[in-house]
């Protein structure tokens, strides 16, 4: 075990309707090689031994690809550091004696389930509204590689497709906007021939769902692309603006 001592200020909320408050937890024996989640595991282990309620937080793959971990750490989603998720954040980013603030994602569309765990299914509903291609899967599929796709388009679509849907963009946006998420999901399909036939319907349906969920509006502050663990560019938001503009003025 390590020798770092820290003070954690953690949001505790016993269920969606509980008022919630910040509680201080001292932790010792923290190694700089631990990930932030492992440090929370140590704290929870300690709480369980003492017979207290462990802190609820989301996590799954712990290798930065699933998008399940969240946490607003010291005022930033996924904490300090760029291009990483909370599970990839290591305690060496902090100093012995530091006080660390840990809060859940704050958004009207992400209600708190318990403590630091929020319900991010609003993003799933945006995806379900149009983030797909209606491909015939009855056995007469065309080989995807038979369709010529410019390398630049394939690369840009792939960059957009790296979105893991963690919601850091919503969490950091001063307006709680889900534009970076929605734009990435629209871009990854509309740039490719398989996605082009449904691009108008997709842009309209996904934006409509995004608005329904109660996300805010994009102010082009650019905070989302800075905090995105996958470094997704706001140029995708501009693409969504174009897609939606064309779809709005040409729909019948």
């Amino acid at each position, binding site marked *: 075990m390590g020798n770092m001592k820290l003070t954690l200020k953690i949001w505790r909320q016993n269920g969606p309707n509980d008022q919630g408050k910040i509680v201080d937890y001292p932790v010792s024996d923290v190694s700089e090689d631990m990930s932030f989640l492992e440090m929370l595991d140590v704290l929870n282990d300690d709480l369980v031994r003492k017979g207290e309620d462990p802190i609820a937080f989301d996590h799954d793959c712990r290798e930065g690809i699933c998008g399940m971990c969240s946490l607003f750490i010291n005022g930033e989603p996924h904490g300090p550091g760029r291009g990483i998720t909370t599970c990839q954040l290591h305690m060496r980013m902090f100093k012995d004696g530091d006080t660390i603030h840990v809060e859940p994602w704050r*958004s009207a569309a992400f209600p708190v389930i318990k403590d630091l765990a929020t319900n991010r299914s609003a993003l799933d509903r945006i995806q379900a509204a149009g983030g797909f291609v209606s491909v015939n899967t009855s056995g007469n599929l065309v080989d995807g590689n038979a369709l010529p796709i410019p390398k630049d388009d394939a690369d840009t679509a792939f960059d957009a497709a790296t979105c893991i849907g963690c919601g850091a963009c919503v969490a950091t946006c001063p307006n709680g906007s889900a534009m970076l998420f929605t734009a990435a999901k629209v871009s990854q399909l509309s740039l490719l021939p398989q996605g082009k036939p449904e691009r108008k319907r997709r842009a309209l349906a996904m934006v409509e769902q995004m608005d329904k969920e109660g996300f805010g*509006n994009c*102010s*082009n502050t650019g905070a989302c692309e800075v905090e995105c663990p996958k470094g997704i560019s706001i140029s995708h938001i501009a693409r969504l603006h174009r897609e939606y503009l064309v779809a*709005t003025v040409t729909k019948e």
Partner: protein
Amino acid sequence: MARQGLFGSSLVKKYWMALTGFFLITFLVVHAGVNAMIFWNDGGVTFNMVAHFFGTNIIIRTMEIVLFLGLIAHVVDGLMLWRQNRAARPVKYAMEKGSASRSWYSASMGILGTLILLFLIVHLWHFWVKSRGIVGSLDELPLDPEGQENLFALMVRTFENPIVVVIYVLGCVSLFWHLLHGFKSAFQSLGLNHKRYNPIIAAFGVAFSIIVPTLFALMPVSMYFGWIQ
């Protein structure tokens, strides 16, 4: 609550914000251009001539109505966006490090816009209301020897007051920050984002945000200090 159609959806609100913003920017260019005539420093002869032409031109007079509608649309749209954005984050963060990822002015467009609007009310009262002869203010308007309204003399008289000069400079500072984000943001909102042109848009936006408010601020300042007479 679904927000749809040409006025309802979040994206369409941003298109209107950008379009009205661009329109107001073109007005700034015309306004700064006309008023810069005072810098001929010929006792306001050139300025009054140009101002008289613009004040009596039917196209400009019609555009004045469009300008007011554009300004109202920009303000109302901004208020609607501001209200929705506040509702989207009902619980604030106890600790938020906004400076890590965004500029303060890009997240303060509402407050900067409000400051500009407050300045505009003062500004319209000083000049527009008087030059249009509204509510008995006509007798306050100085006339030149030919009996035409002398806006230059009105400017000189208005900017004798140091408090007025400070208010105008603060208005220009608010405009600077508002434009610094608004100019390039309007391009992004309309989807005009391209690797090759982004640096040009950004550089032009910064230059515009500095040049236009500075030109405006120089007007009351140079009149107060008597550089322009």
